């Protein structure tokens, strides 16, 4: 039992927490956009159409979320199984390969993967999905490997000496101890995905990036701002949600201090 439990998220506390506020703001803006017409008309008097109405913003939000969820689930599943496979005897030989792939993810920008998916698969939702999944795999793979490596060798040693089978070792020692770093990797992957999914509008996917791109090509700053605020709010809300998840999953245990210094990829 962890020493500090996360306090349950009941209804009254939800609105006092920044997570509650950001989700609220997101939903209000998504569904209430048409009603903000007077506000934007006042801010941008020179624009004939100050509010993005070509597609319902709420629909774009759900499509964006859907794309992110689908690709992230696939990416996390793939990456975690690949990372865990390196702990097995047969998987050991593949560890250097996994590490190389994971490191590659830190140099190749996701835009590149997105762009390269198009010649391979064409326009639309599919290259976006493939690119997002492929790119989402790398941070999670790196985090899984790092998490497994962060388990102190003395703990592994004594667990084995106590007679734990390899499976028990994995389930009871390695996974719980690798969890903080792994979760940090998943978090990075999902947040990067949210950004890349927005850019995916350039290849034909219908996401929250569409108002931004429409605004950019049509010199409509209002559209750009509306799209940008939605994407930004979504990212912040997701980040806060992960904060909460981390608290629930591993309480006061921090991820080890020597994490690789993470950067921004999209």
């Amino acid at each position, binding site marked *: *039992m962890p*020493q500090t439990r996360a306090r349950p998220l009941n209804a009254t506390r939800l609105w006092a927490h920044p997570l509650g506020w950001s989700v609220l703001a997101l939903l209000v803006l998504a569904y209430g956009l048409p009603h903000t017409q007077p506000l934007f008309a006042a801010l941008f008097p020179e624009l004939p159409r100050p509010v993005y109405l070509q597609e319902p913003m709420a629909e774009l939000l759900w499509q964006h979320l859907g794309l992110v969820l689908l690709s992230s689930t696939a990416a996390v599943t793939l990456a975690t199984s690949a990372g865990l496979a390196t702990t097995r005897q047969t998987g050991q030989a593949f560890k250097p390969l996994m590490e190389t792939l994971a490191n590659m993810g830190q140099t190749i920008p996701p835009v590149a993967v997105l762009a390269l998916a198009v010649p391979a698969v064409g326009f639309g939702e599919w290259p976006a999905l493939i690119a997002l999944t492929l790119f989402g795999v790398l941070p999670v793979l790196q985090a899984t490997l790092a998490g497994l490596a962060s388990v*102190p060798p*003395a*703990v*592994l*040693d*004594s*667990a*084995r*000496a*106590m*007679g*734990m*089978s390899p499976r*028990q070792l994995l389930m009871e*020692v390695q996974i*719980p*101890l690798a969890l903080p770093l792994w979760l940090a990797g998943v978090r990075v992957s999902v947040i990067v995905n949210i950004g890349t999914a927005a850019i995916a509008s350039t290849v034909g996917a219908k996401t929250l990036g569409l108002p931004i791109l429409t605004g950019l090509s049509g010199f409509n700053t209002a559209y750009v701002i509306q799209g940008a605020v939605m994407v930004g709010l979504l990212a912040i809300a997701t980040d806060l949600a992960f904060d909460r998840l981390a608290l629930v999953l*591993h309480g006061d*245990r921090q991820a080890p201090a020597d994490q690789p210094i993470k950067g921004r990829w999209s």
Partner: protein
Amino acid sequence: MISFQRVSKCHEGVAAITDLNLHIQAGELLVLLGPSGCGKSTVLKMVNRMVSHDGGEILFNGKNINGFDVQDLRRRMGYAIQSTGLFPHRTVAQNIATVPSLLDWEPRRVQARVKDMLTLLAMDPKEFSHRLPHQLSGGQQQRVGVARALAADPDVLLMDEPFSALDPVTRAALQLSLKEIHRATGKTILFVTHDIDEALLLATRIALLKQGRLVQVGTPLELLQQPANDFAADFLGRSDGGLKQLSLRPLAPHIKALEGAPALHTISHTATLKETISLMATHRVSVLSVVDDHKAVLGQVQAADLLEN
């Protein structure tokens, strides 16, 4: 209980252990002693198959250890190491309960056992059960480590330099605790150390190793009085071997009746000869009064008497 027969091990072309023949009797505390790199940790790890041996046989209760299922074998042996290896994500109670849980003991029995173990290691169950390892001091962590090793009532307790990383005061306290536990439970303990004084204090028998070979095995007194070769004599203390012998011999047989008024300085009747001489040197006297646990005078002891046979 454990027999090494012509055991050898090669590691990357270099012979780590050569022709080891050693028999460990049930109930004894055998210390594997030697300089760094002599292979003592390797010998220990061969017993629970953390390290495989290349030649010879190792028998556990008469049966070859390779014939056991490796996990079953390990669950019958306790293992305590220098860095404790406590699970950071589990409480003290959960750590101690690890092997009993692996053996499918019923929960109530496990809980009772955890309490017993903590009490055995002089830790209050109420205070410590729910703490996490990082909230404990080094000495407390090591106590939990030992408790965890003893939890499932193993046949053998394997200890690899468990107290070496602790400060001298904590180390001394834990050594005494271990000695007490050995006396109380009668467990077979295999203990690795490079510290001669620790070995002399704890061991019923010492096996001295050098570069993978067994140099000598015997009781501490035997090793001090009849070292097999120069190395043994040197290692055990050529210049203060005599003092080391004195640390193994109790005062009691040398207590004489009082002659005249009791001496000013007193010594407990349970002290060793080394402690007696040390006290005499401190106060620059040659006679001390011996007192019992209630400070009543039992007799006296003189410096000359101590050096008698």
